[in-house]
């Protein structure tokens, strides 16, 4: 890609970087580098440590070990604003714009990096100040033209659409004249057309020799735009190289979809579900901030069955469960448990009605002991008055997860990720729910423990518990679910038995992209409005 006559200095060089949070090793000994004028994409399943690594590079966290070099300078432990002054600009997953300023003014703040205004210069030196304002306006408009926001320059930043806000963040970043651009999930929340526009913009920036490092849930976008891809799993680098090679790497496919077979023993004596509807959800609509995450999702869970919902990161799986559980407001739609409606009830009421959610990233109470965590699982039922009953239920959980019995008095925060997941499931069962909902129980957990957890889920299923499981790790769900739905971009795109879906190539496509489905609408990207006159502002 880059002109490599003499040995080129890598733009970003990560050497043996590790970061640990409590009992969880988020990133361990990651090494990679890439050169000027390249786009490097960092991908990996949920919980793989992408965001942590991104925050290490951008200076939000300080690594426990290892060295990060940007443009030759060591940046680990350097405050964010100093890293920025080295020629590094970034965008945010949730756009962080200056709401009370106009679009143009947002970019002008970016221009301020070159010479941060001082109190004195702003009150004195009137004519010089006015001249500089004029220059900044012209420069800001040039950057806005670059990203196609010329017509919006006098609007307030907060009035922009979500996609325009992302573009404005890029324009503001460009105003600092960066040599390296860090993008935090630039495609999330964008429509297909907006993604295409973004991809074209990134390619255009690369043509000006700007280097770009991005993390992204939407793997197909990364494959589409990146020169170099780094794949993380369990905090470690599992693959690196050109997109085509990475996409066909069995280790990568396994990291995303789970390994076929071996996750859980197939049980032959399957108890037939009763046929009565346990949970029914109709046309659920939910927003997170300004972003519509669920677009009329409908599904049901039959009493005694394991229902699975799988899909790539960012599809809306966690929002779906959180909305059913009452953590997030439901904008439209209906949820019923048995014959009772639960919509509009707060989370603390929903659990009393019989729905227990084992949340994403487990949500255990790290400062309490394992036993205290389990006891609190029964809070909705007992209110603390029947200790013996609680103790008996805790014994039942210990029978399911013998490992927890040994750890009963340990502080929950000291447990490993897998042990914490067992604890979270056990705590969910303590409510004696009519429906147990699990949000990504395999997230960030070693395969051996995933198998152990799925073995227990199978046991519960045999016992007649109704379970709704949401997973990115599709193949492990195929092993135990009666029915599986695939959620993509806030919509359920297919539903079927595991046997029907296991060999369906469309499932792999939903995760890793590849051949775009031909039936889709609006696939053709609109032409990019790039002003040809824009001089290269990035050196």
């Amino acid at each position, binding site marked *: 890609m880059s002109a490599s006559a003499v040995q080129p200095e890598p733009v970003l060089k990560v050497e043996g970087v590790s970061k640990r949070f409590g009992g969880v090793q988020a990133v361990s000994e990651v090494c990679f580098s890439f050169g000027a004028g390249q786009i490097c994409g960092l991908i990996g399943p949920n919980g793989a440590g992408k965001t942590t690594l991104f925050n290490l590079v951008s200076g939000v966290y300080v690594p426990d070990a290892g060295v990060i070099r940007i443009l030759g300078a060591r940046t680990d432990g350097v405050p964010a*604003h100093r890293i920025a002054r080295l020629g590094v*600009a970034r965008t945010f997953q949730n756009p962080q714009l200056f709401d009370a300023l106009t679009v143009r003014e947002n970019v002008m*703040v970016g221009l*301020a990096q070159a010479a*941060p205004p001082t109190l004195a210069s702003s009150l004195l030196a009137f004519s010089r100040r006015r001249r500089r304002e004029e220059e900044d306006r012209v420069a800001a408009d040039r950057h806005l033209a670059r990203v196609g926001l010329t017509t919006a320059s006098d609007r307030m930043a907060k009035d922009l659409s979500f996609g325009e806000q992302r573009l404005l963040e890029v324009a503001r970043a460009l105003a600092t004249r960066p040599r390296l651009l860090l993008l935090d999930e630039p495609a999330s929340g964008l429509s297909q057309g907006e993604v295409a526009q973004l991809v074209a913009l990134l390619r255009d920036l690369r043509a000006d020799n700007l280097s770009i490092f991005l993390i992204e849930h939407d793997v197909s976008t990364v494959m589409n735009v990146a020169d170099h891809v780094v794949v993380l799993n369990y905090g470690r680098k599992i693959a690196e190289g050109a997109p085509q090679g990475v996409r066909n790497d069995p280790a990568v496919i396994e990291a995303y979809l789970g390994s076929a077979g071996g996750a859980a023993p197939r049980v032959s004596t399957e108890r037939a579900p009763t046929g009565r509807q346990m949970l029914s959800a109709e046309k659920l609509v939910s927003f997170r901030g300004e972003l519509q995450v669920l677009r009329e999702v409908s599904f049901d869970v039959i009493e005694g069955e394991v229902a699975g919902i799988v899909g790539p990161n960012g599809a809306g799986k966690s929002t779906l469960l959180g909305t059913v559980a009452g953590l997030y407001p439901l904008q439209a739609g209906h949820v019923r448990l048995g014959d009772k409606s639960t919509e509009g009830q707060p989370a603390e009421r929903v659990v009393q009605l019989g729905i227990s959610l084992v949340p994403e990233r487990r949500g255990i109470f790290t400062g309490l002991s394992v036993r205290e965590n389990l006891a609190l699982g029964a809070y909705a039922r007992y209110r603390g008055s029947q200790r013996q009953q609680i103790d008996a239920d805790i014994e039942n959980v210990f029978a399911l997860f013998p490992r927890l019995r040994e750890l009963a008095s340990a502080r929950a925060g000291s447990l490993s990720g897998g042990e914490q997941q067992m604890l979270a499931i056990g705590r969910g069962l303590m409510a004696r729910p009519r429906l147990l909902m699990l949000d990504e129980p395999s997230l960030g957990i070693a395969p051996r423990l995933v198998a152990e957890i799925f073995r227990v889920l199978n046991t519960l299923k045999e016992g007649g518990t109704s379970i709704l499981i949401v997973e990115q790790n599709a193949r492990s769900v195929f092993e135990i679910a009666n029915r599986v739905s695939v959620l993509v971009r806030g919509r359920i795109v297919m539903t079927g038995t595991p046997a029907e879906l296991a060999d369906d190539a469309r499932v792999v496509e939903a995760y890793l992209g590849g051949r775009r489905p031909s039936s889709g609408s609006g696939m053709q990207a609109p032409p990019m409005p790039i002003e040809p006159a824009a001089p290269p502002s990035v050196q």
Partner: protein
Amino acid sequence: MRPSTASRELLILVPVALALAALGVLGNTYMISMLVIAGIHVIVTAGLTLLLGFAGQISLAQAAFYALGAYGSMIGTVHLGLNPWLALVLTALGSGIVAYAIGVPTLRLHGHYLALATLGFGIIVNIVLVQETNITGGPTGAVGIPRLTLGVELTSDRQYFALVWFVTLALLLVCRVLVTGSSYGRVLRALQASEVATESIGIDVARYKVQVFVLCAVLASLGGSLYAHYLTVISPSEFGFDVSMEFLVMAVIGGLGSVWGALAGVLAVTAFLEILRTVAPMIAPNIPTSEYEVVAFGGLLVLTLLFFPDGFMGRWRRFAGALRLGAMGR
């Protein structure tokens, strides 16, 4: 800066100045002296408005910097025999340096550490004022502070009224220009919207916060100097912790982030207390008004924040915005 900005400022400034001029000519002595104090309060409160609005930080020592201004001017003129204007400037510089020393260690941290530090600082200042009798006059205070001179000594309250409000409005206008019409103000407004994003652009957020805090302290000090030269008598009880709270209340009630909010807040609170003093004795003649005042003050603060969390100016801005949109629709 949009072309309408300057005219919008005049829209507020001109009526205010005219009203004040009318009051200055027609008002009785009581009203004049009340308004002199109110003008001084506006200067002190404006500092807090900027600090709360742009740095998102609380200072509980505004009365202490007010005291530094007053006592600094007193010491400069009475003990050292300096020209009052020179004493005023030197005191303001000194207050700024003190604020810098407090701000640098605390504003580098995330959280409300400035509130904690200023709490401690404010109370210590007040205790020193009481204890160091030789310099400050102790609990009974200091006397014999000269009036300011502008060619002639400003002996009449009406002259002082004109001076104070000229200075007040000029300072407000300077602050306003600083915030809305300059690249410096743009950085401040960026800071207010998102600290992480401002930092990611390469701007040292802490540095700007310290500067705003220094500005906040200097304004308080200027107000204190004007106060000392007006009353010519000062004592520690006028600069206690509760006074810091009152400035905070006036800032919050007026609305944060726009210096006009300080004007609105001070005038609203002053008017409220005056009305209370007139009305309360009619309802309950047996209870001294000063006792009601405190309850009413607390009540006013709580109710304002419950119903107008953005303060009066915030509500006004939204109202004005709605009017403009309505007009455009037609």
